[in-house]
């Protein structure tokens, strides 16, 4: 779905939203069949899933907590897509955002400084891919996959070596108490608010600023962008840098805003995988910041609900992953919407 620049928030096209909703519904139905096939009660499974995700303030807080990092990495991917780049480097920038938070809040225990350094390092890690793309024509799929791996091992080295916690080597040194993000309640920090603001700002940047116009134009048609006096090379640079910055912010907030440890675990277990998850979130959110907010919350729900679903309906995690996979696949079918619409029309006639 193409978004128009002049579209205001109130006149947002609801079709993609409805499309995704239908897809999700169909995914749940197929998932129910899978559950039945393996002898689980889909009704109770889904009941507990939603109970866990939305049935209590605590559930909602967890949902939002899960939604936060993937919202930011999804924005990275979406900015890339909107500017014609298949940027899968969110993962790497996320690691650097996280380690930057750990390192720099321990230099100066100031929250804003930590966030800023997270964004900075996240952006810096995106820089090589940007430079290689612009000056050497290196396809971003190669550079970002390679940089993700390189960044991964580099950060692993940092956390097991120089920044291991001397009193508890299973994690890095912790974020000082003063530099942690304030908690709203139920373990949910203001990270979610910052993430939503970031999404809105991204929307504003892409659709309401000169720079964003240039980035989008360059993404669709470089020749036309050049003709219009824009600078496609800089647009590519900015796309990578802003993308990296957002993922870096995500990484920093993951550590600064989420207990209990406020540190990176050895093996990077609590910073791994968010970049990849973000791709799915972005796509289900149709690469639109508003869509991404909703879709990140949806994915957060699926994650938050699994605990009760396992505990009460005894559905193993693997089956839950299968259902998530099916939902994501159904989201890819755009004509689902038309099919359903046709069916409704036929029913009405």
């Amino acid at each position: 779905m193409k978004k128009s620049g002049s579209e205001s928030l109130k006149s947002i096209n609801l079709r993609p939203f409805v499309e995704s909703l239908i897809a999700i519904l169909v995914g749940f139905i197929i998932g129910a069949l899978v559950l039945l096939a393996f002898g689980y009660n889909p009704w109770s499974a889904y009941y507990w899933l939603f109970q866990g995700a939305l049935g209590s303030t605590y559930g909602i807080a967890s949902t939002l907590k899960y939604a936060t990092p993937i919202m930011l990495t999804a924005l990275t991917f979406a900015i890339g897509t909107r500017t014609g780049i298949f940027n899968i480097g969110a993962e790497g920038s996320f690691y650097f955002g996280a380690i930057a938070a750990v390192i720099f809040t321990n230099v100066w225990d100031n929250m804003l400084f930590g966030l800023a350094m997270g964004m900075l390092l996240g952006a810096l890690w995106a820089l090589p891919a940007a430079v290689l793309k612009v000056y050497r024509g290196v396809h971003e799929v190669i550079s970002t996959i390679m940089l993700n791996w390189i960044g991964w091992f580099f950060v692993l080295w940092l956390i097991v070596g120089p920044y291991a916690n001397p009193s508890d080597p299973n994690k890095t040194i912790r974020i000082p108490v003063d530099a942690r993000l304030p908690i709203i309640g139920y373990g949910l920090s203001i990270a979610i608010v910052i993430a939503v603001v970031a999404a809105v700002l991204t929307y504003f940047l892409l659709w309401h600023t000169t720079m964003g116009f240039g980035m989008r134009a360059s993404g669709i048609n470089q020749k036309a962008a050049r003709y219009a006096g824009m600078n496609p090379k800089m647009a590519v640079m900015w796309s990578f840098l802003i993308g990296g910055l957002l993922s870096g912010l995500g990484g920093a907030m993951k550590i600064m805003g989420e207990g209990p440890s406020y540190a990176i675990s050895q093996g990077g277990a609590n910073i791994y995988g968010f970049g990849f998850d973000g791709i799915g979130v972005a796509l289900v959110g149709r690469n639109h910041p508003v869509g991404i907010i909703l879709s990140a919350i949806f994915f957060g729900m699926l994650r938050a609900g699994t605990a009760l679903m396992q505990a009460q309906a005894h559905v193993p995690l693997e089956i839950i992953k299968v259902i998530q996979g099916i939902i994501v696949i159904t989201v890819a079918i755009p004509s689902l919407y038309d099919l359903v619409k046709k069916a409704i029309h036929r029913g009405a006639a």
Partner: protein
Amino acid sequence: ISPGGEESTKGAIAIVYDVGGRGDLSFNDMAYLGASKAAKDFNLDLVELQSNSEDDYVKNLETLAAQKKYLVIIAVGFMMTDAVKQVADEYPDQKFAIIDGYIPDKDNVMSILFKENEGSALAGALAGLIAANDGKDKVGIVLGMEIPVLYKFEAGYRFGVKWAEDYYKQKEGKDVTVDVIYQYTGSFGDAAKGKAAARAQLAQGAWVIYQVAGGTGLGVFDAVGEVLDSQGKKMGPPFAIGVDSAQDWIKPGVIIASMMKRVDVGVYTAVKDAVEGNFKGGIVELGLKEDGVGLSTVDDVMAMFDSLPEDTQQQKLKDLGFNSRDELRQYLEDTRKQVPDWIWDAVKELQGKITTGVIKVPAPMDQDGIGAVRNAKTWQEMMELAK
């Protein structure tokens, strides 16, 4: 597993796995073993929660604690330490047990720790003596990601190898050196990586390889198996040494023994204590002395094998080319006979000394610690580090 919640049992226990989940060939699997046995023995419902990522720990623990129906909630893995601390504070009436996590001061939390360094020392002694006996000068260890918990394994192994050098010298009157080739593969789930690492170590002369790498370690077994194959041998040496559970059954003939970490015993004990009202918070440390770690015996392997479902056992026997359980047992025993009895006796001797506290094995917790162990020339030097 049955959906719904019929309460025909005397209560329930819950277990939260860490991200490795069931099938990690490590503490999760062992914890399951203990928990399921306890559930059966005490007629309890067992609820299992897997974790998608580290972020799920608090959520999983809290969800269970809020249900207020579990006799004890078992958290598997050191990574859950902070999560357990937090949730235990929120739910002081709920009993928790954590495997590998150090929580010394809460009444409702039992921390079950293992002295992997002691068990690994036996593995190292075994490896070192096999190498020395065959006139080889290198043994290997393939580890997973470089995380400090693995330093204990590496240090123990090194200690054992150095001890073996010394022992051999005293026994045969010959100076031998056995070097330890080590590498962290950066992954716990990529068997191909483990295979490549083991291949490289074998090419560089490793005669016995200890794997401490979860799924990656499966590739170590495969690589050693291939070397045997290429020499037309069914049994080593070269050998591999398994870890965490009695893994010998995975590839009989290839795996001489495994360094067992009896998470199952720890879990079982925690449940038993809770059922019988003997649950006490604090640290429970299980070493060689407490049978919490140790080298696998054939009996251990058979017990592990017996814990598999019946038809899996039959299939497994068929796959391995055995007609009966007894044949497998015989085969495992034959495998061990490839190593002279005196070596087994020597390992026992070391075990005795560690158990009685005559010998102490270092357990470094960080890079500096392991660095010091790597630099130590003798086991005595290492023992200094353990103090």
